[in-house]
């Protein structure tokens, strides 16, 4: 067997290991699915009436806000899940089984690939649940199937990128406790962008940051694809950000794992 087939085989073994672990320890998955749902309900039913009126243009109110906030909540869900991934990786690294893997003739990156694919599947399931609930409470996208696919593709790309970042952060953390803190800034990024309110309503410095940070173009693209708002060059910038984060994090994670 060639090196590549072996790597693919080891990776699929590690993915199966990870999925089995996730099934065996479902409370983490449940928490990752439930937390964004609660945030969605909070933002729509508690803040939505007022925030929706401030969106400008259109009828405003709660109905307008559901449509506006869903992309932000989706990205926030991914960021929350990244915390879980970082903790899981850091915990896994403290286990003797990782040392065992290192003394075996297997593709080393397969251990990390297992974590990434497992987490991505977990997060996409979470996003599907979130979109389902959003649709039930008044989310009304006007996307064609192709636009849906494009949005799903971009979200998946983002999830892959942020998961590799989480894996790298988890590997860098000396303890699982430290790993749970490292991705916290990611959770706040949707707030400091166009996730919950349009950026024009912010003071200058904050607006500048909000417009140039990576999550804003991603949210704007998803919003545009699903709801028909203007996308402009956001799609290209979003894809570039995802590619850059994924590639840098992958290399970072791999070299960290090999060094340890």
């Amino acid at each position, binding site marked *: 067997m060639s090196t590549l087939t072996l790597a693919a085989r080891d990776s699929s073994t590690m993915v199966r290991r990870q999925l*089995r*672990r996730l099934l065996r320890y479902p409370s983490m998955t449940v928490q990752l699915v439930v937390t964004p749902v609660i945030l969605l309900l909070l933002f729509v039913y508690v803040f939505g009436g007022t925030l929706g009126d401030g969106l400008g243009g259109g009828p405003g109110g709660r109905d307008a806000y559901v449509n506006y906030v869903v992309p932000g909540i989706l990205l926030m869900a991914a960021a929350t899940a990244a915390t879980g991934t970082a903790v899981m990786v850091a915990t896994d690294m403290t286990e003797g089984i990782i040392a065992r*893997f*290192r*003394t*075996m003739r297997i593709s080393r990156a397969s251990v990390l690939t297992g974590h990434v694919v497992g987490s991505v599947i977990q997060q996409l399931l979470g996003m599907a649940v979130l979109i389902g609930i959003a649709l039930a409470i008044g989310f009304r996208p006007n996307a064609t199937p192709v636009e849906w696919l494009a949005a799903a593709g971009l979200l998946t790309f983002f999830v892959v990128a942020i998961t590799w970042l989480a894996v790298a952060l988890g590997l860098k953390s000396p303890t699982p406790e430290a790993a749970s803190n490292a991705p916290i800034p990611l959770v706040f990024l949707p707030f400091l962008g166009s996730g919950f309110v349009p950026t024009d309503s912010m003071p200058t410095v904050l607006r500048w940051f909000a417009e140039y940070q990576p999550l804003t173009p991603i949210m704007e693209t998803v919003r545009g694809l699903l709801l028909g708002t203007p996308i402009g060059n956001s799609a290209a910038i979003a894809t570039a950000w995802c590619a850059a984060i994924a590639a840098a994090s992958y290399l970072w994670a791999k070299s960290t794992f090999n060094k340890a």
Partner: protein
Amino acid sequence: MTNLAIAANGLRKSYRDKDGDKVVLDGVDLAVPEGTIFSLLGPNGAGKTTTVQILSTLIRADGGQVQVAGYDLNRQADDVRGAIGVTGQYSAVDKLLTGEENLLLMADLKHLPKREGKRRAKELLEKFDLVEAGGKPAATYSGGMRRRLDLAMTLVGDPRLIFLDEPTTGLDPRSRRSMWGIVRDLVKNGVTIFLTTQYLEEADELADRIALLDHGRLIAEGTAEELKRLIPGGHIELTFADTHLLEAARHLVGAGTGAGAAAPEALTLQVPSDGSVGAVRELLALLDERSIDVAEMRVHTPDLDDVFLTLTGRQQKESLR
């Protein structure tokens, strides 16, 4: 000449910490013939685990020539990994998976065909007395069960050389004996075992050759018997029915050797000796000639404890504690 499973020359390793460089291994030479049990014995912190970590490709040595299973450790690390199995000091099982799933995971990573992997997992569960526990998550296992599963996982790919880093530390006596039985069976099938332990009894029971490691240096190496001969301490203890006989005996052997510690209240006499059959026969013959009846006799040969404590120079420290 038999082939060497491990051949190391001048193995060196130091770690950098806040007090500067700390030398962990200071030029260790090892030669382990195939199909034997080699035990690396030493107190905590002697460098045993570091040695295993280097030989099993987990960490790199700073210097030294090492061949493991016929492959160069630095240049052919992947080939080394294909030939060895490692059971470390900390249990290397996935606690969320069941015993059987852990074994199947190993079979997949060793690239065994599905059916072969299942067969091997079943066989190992039976061999290691884990059939009932096979369907339960490893997190629910006792220490002894987890250690058995750990070793079973190491055996999945039939490695030719197995590293056991303190395999019985923390196990109860029964689990320890069962582990010893397993290790002996492995060697019958031609596997080489590199074992570290801090228990002298364990090295004495299992190992063909023993090396004593202290502060990163090998301070002695040989069979258990050879090591015991390195230090004095052997004697024959004679017990007599009354003080007259004791005195007569003391006079007799004392005159010849100039030694012989007597304990009148216990009616015993210690005669320095290497404890060999010839020496015992000679002593008894001498006493017989003078019709001095011996009530009881015990031969004390130095055990590895004596060797260990003498050579590591820790006798003083230990007895003060």
